[in-house]
């Protein structure tokens, strides 16, 4: 079995002058190598830095999946370099990645379990902590829920999923990713019958046109944007089109900025599709061979019902350029221009999106419409030609979507409500027949609503264990969905984290976790790339791996005789064995790193990945690579090969010879994708006389998610210390607001006072304001809406109605 951890040393020691000189020389060598695009030179430069050990790791932050080289000495991370050998970032890092090594060294790291006693969090032992949790489980196993995120490593998510669905058998597990990319999942499933993008980041270099659909790539996925910008700066011919509700850094580098009114992207997509049909400019051969047509039923469902091509054409007829302009504000000529791009078969068009399309009460609808525009025009299945969603968390794909930590999914795309799927998973996990419950657990919004509702009023979740996320800050309408816990009676909140957060402040039990390279891990990024890293330094104090925490609890419950923690032969649910067949005592922290538990769990998980042609290679293959994009298939020569583009002959090993393009998971079982008609509909809440502005929330370059990590890095915190409300200058004039004035925002759910930023980095269109959500002292999600897409159950953080008032000094 692979090195468990390469035995990191305790943190000690001083930095010699020599090392500083070496550091400087290494920095120059790395910069020269990057300027020359010579990765080998970078590796050579790093290896010459005396006393520093280097190893790879994916960045801890967003879903881009950049690789960094981590330099450690005397038990600490002392240097970070962009990994020149990594395809994703080719030696580059963004402002956050550049500081990723510092996130572990905040002064307020959590280092011991803390239990709330008489209102105060007091230190306790791990042994007591496990007993406290076990008591809560035993008291109400059906009301015990797990809430994680796409920051779980693959092994962590796998263990949490098996614990909830195979152990507790209540299916109450869901991730923060529900708030992040659930609509992308349903969009892919409804269109292709299988989740995740067919394309990959290579499209950034291969496309002629890159369309950002409500996607501020420059700030949210900066290294990917750098790849596009780099092409432009080198004189390459690539056009960037920014369809957005707010002018951003992305707009600044775009060839065209096309602002649209919030929520009207559906009209824009339908307008393009309408023109393609009206002008006979769609790809008739591609459509005839590879597409079916589909529409919604009432009530809506994931797969809707079939419609004919003529019905599809008729449904689109109202979306003339003039009507789309009336709805969206995008000029009719610009709609014609967009349609003309898609009508050109010679152009290669790559679409990118993230939260703008996903955090949308019509999220599934707009996702399917963008896929539909690509399919209709035949811009699919070639390098540079296809739609690619991006994720906001490092393993939203690898852990949530592939391991299946959503409330209705099992690993490998298996579904809890399908009996054959349950039976197959029970067999894999050696569970007694019928162990896995057939009813999906609560999705995120429902889970937290059930937690903050008293039991006698139907609130059937009594305990939630949160790992790797910060729901008090990130849930929408957070007073209702989080802070109302206080008045809901016997509710118990457990939080595993690395730093104090707004969530830990409300917790009844806080567990200290290991962070990033303090543990072994694997992530799966936005382009289907599975990445691996080893522990390189030790966690502080008594902080421990999240994976261990779950296994240790399961063992405690097993020892108490809980049947759910036994397989059908009465053995422990997480019984693992090394290559010699000896049992790995994964529940024993003192021996946890005697073996590579990550590897053992990954190999247990790997057979699941073949169920939907998302094949992963053996663990060792990832040790020796900077990640591989699935399906990873072994060739006749024994080598494991990744797949860059799916569903296209010659590019995807699962496409049959002679098929050209084959959607081999088609929901209609005929190898065709589904082109959907979905109408524009008004959002559930719109500005009115009482709340006249649209509020959009999102990210900034310098802070990641709720800033629980980046907020500990001085440089990032100083660069972006506090949230603000970004306004259009004319709106500011009308309200008498100047830069820096305090402005009160009020929605139907809450209020917040923020400093105004006018004429700054971004500029919303008139009638719109933008507030970032990173600031724990300015909880903008007290104002946001908890209405969701009816199919994906993902809420809309991009649109709700607010009133603004200048607060006089």
């Amino acid at each position, binding site marked *: 079995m692979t090195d468990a951890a390469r035995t990191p040393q305790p943190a000690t020691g001083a930095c010699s002058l020599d090392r500083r000189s070496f550091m400087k020389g290494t920095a120059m060598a790395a*910069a020269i190598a990057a300027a020359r695009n010579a990765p080998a030179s970078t590796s050579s430069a790093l290896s010459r830095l005396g006393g520093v050990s280097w190893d790879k790791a994916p960045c801890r932050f967003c879903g881009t999946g950049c690789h960094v080289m981590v330099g450690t000495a005397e038990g600490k991370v002392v240097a970070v370099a962009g990994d020149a050998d990594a395809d994703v970032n080719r030696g580059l890092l963004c*402002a956050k990645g550049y500081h990723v090594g510092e996130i572990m*060294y905040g002064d307020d790291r959590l280092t011991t379990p803390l239990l709330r006693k008489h209102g105060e969090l007091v230190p306790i032992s791990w042994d007591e902590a496990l007993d406290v949790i076990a008591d809560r489980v035993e008291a109400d196993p059906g009301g015990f829920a797990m809430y994680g995120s796409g920051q779980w490593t693959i092994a962590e998510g796998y263990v949490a999923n098996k614990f909830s669905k195979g152990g507790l058998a209540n299916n109450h597990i869901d991730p923060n990713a529900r708030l992040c990319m659930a609509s992308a999942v349903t969009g892919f499933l409804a269109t292709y019958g299988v989740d995740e993008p067919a394309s990959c980041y290579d499209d950034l270099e291969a496309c002629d046109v890159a369309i950002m659909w409500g996607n501020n790539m420059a700030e949210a996925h900066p290294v990917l944007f750098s790849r596009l910008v780099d092409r432009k700066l080198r004189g390459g011919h690539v056009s960037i089109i920014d369809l957005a509700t707010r002018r951003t850094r992305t707009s600044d580098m775009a060839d065209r900025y096309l602002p649209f009114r919030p929520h009207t992207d559906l009209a824009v997509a339908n307008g393009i599709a309408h023109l393609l049909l009206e002008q006979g400019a769609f790809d008739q051969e591609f459509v005839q061979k590879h597409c079916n047509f589909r529409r919604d039923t009432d009530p809506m469902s994931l797969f809707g019902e079939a419609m004919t091509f003529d019905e599809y054409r008729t449904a689109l007829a109202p979306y003339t350029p003039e009507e789309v302009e009336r709805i969206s504000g995008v000029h009719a000529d610009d709609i014609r221009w967009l349609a003309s791009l898609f009508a050109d078969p010679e152009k290669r068009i790559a679409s990118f999106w993230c939260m703008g399309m996903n955090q949308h009460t019509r999220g599934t609808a707009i996702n399917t419409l963008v896929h539909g525009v690509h399919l209709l025009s035949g811009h699919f299945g070639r390098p540079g030609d296809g739609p690619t969603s991006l994720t906001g968390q490092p393993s939203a794909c690898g852990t949530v979507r592939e391991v299946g930590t959503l409330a209705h999914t099992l690993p490998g795309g298996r579904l809890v409500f399908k009996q054959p799927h349950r039976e197959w998973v029970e067999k894999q996990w050696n569970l007694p027949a019928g162990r896995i419950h057939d009813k999906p657990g609560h999705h995120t919004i429902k889970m937290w609503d059930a937690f903050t509702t008293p039991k006698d009023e139907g609130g059937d979740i009594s305990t939630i264990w949160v790992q790797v996320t910060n729901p008090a800050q990130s849930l929408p309408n957070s007073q209702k969905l989080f802070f109302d816990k206080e008045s809901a009676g016997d509710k118990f909140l457990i939080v595993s984290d690395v730093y104090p957060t707004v969530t830990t402040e409300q917790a009844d039990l806080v567990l200290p976790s290991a962070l990033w390279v303090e543990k072994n891990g694997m992530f799966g990024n936005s382009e289907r790339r599975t990445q691996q890293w080893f522990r390189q330094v030790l966690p502080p104090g008594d902080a421990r791996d999240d994976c261990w925490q779950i296994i240790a609890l399961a063992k405690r419950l097993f020892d108490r005789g809980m049947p759910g923690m036994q397989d059908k032969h009465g053995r422990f649910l997480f019984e693992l064995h090394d290559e010699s067949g000896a049992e790995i005592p994964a529940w024993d922290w003192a021996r946890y790193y005697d073996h590579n538990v990550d590897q053992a769990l990954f190999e247990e998980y790997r057979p699941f990945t073949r169920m939907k042609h998302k094949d992963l290679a053996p663990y060792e293959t990832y040790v020796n690579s900077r990640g591989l994009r699935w399906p990873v298939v072994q060739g006749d020569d024994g080598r494991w090969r990744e797949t860059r583009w799916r569903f296209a002959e010659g590019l995807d090993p699962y496409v049959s010879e002679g098929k050209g393009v084959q959607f081999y998971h088609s929901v209609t079982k005929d190898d065709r994708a589904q082109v959907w008609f979905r109408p524009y509909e008004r959002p559930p809440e719109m500005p009115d006389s009482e709340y006249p502005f649209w509020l959009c929330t999102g990210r900034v370059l310098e802070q990641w998610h709720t800033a629980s990590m980046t907020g500990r890095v001085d440089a*990032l915190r*100083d660069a972006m210390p*506090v949230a603000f409300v970004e306004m259009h200058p004319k709106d500011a004039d009308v309200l008498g607001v100047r830069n820096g004035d305090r402005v009160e925002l009020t929605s139907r759910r809450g209020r917040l006072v923020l400093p105004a930023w006018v004429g700054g980095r971004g500029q919303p269109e008139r009638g719109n304001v933008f507030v970032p959500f990173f600031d724990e*002292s300015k909880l903008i999600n007290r104002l946001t809406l908890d209405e969701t897409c009816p199919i994906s159950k993902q809420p809309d953080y991009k649109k709700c109605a607010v009133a603004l008032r200048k607060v006089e000094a």
Partner: protein
Amino acid sequence: MTTSGLVLTLAADEIVRQRCMDRLAAHDDLELGPAEGLRLPVVLTTADAEHSERVTRALRELPGVDHLDIVFVGLTDGDGSPPARADRAGAARTAPSVSPPQERTLP
């Protein structure tokens, strides 16, 4: 001590580029490497990470710098420890700086 390896992509306009190079060369914290076309390797050495970030931001805004990539960061202070961090309360109470500088001068 914070040591960063940067790659600056400079403007195509020769006059603008040369003015930019002159200003970069005069900056005490910067060491310039050999240019590769428009791409200039640079090492930035500062007393702490905050100063490093300020200079990096100013470089991004400097006329003649079209783009800046960070490729290496050495994190150690002079004593070999990662820079001390303020606690979370400090983070929350930091005075608002609602207009991140658009300055055109290097600190």
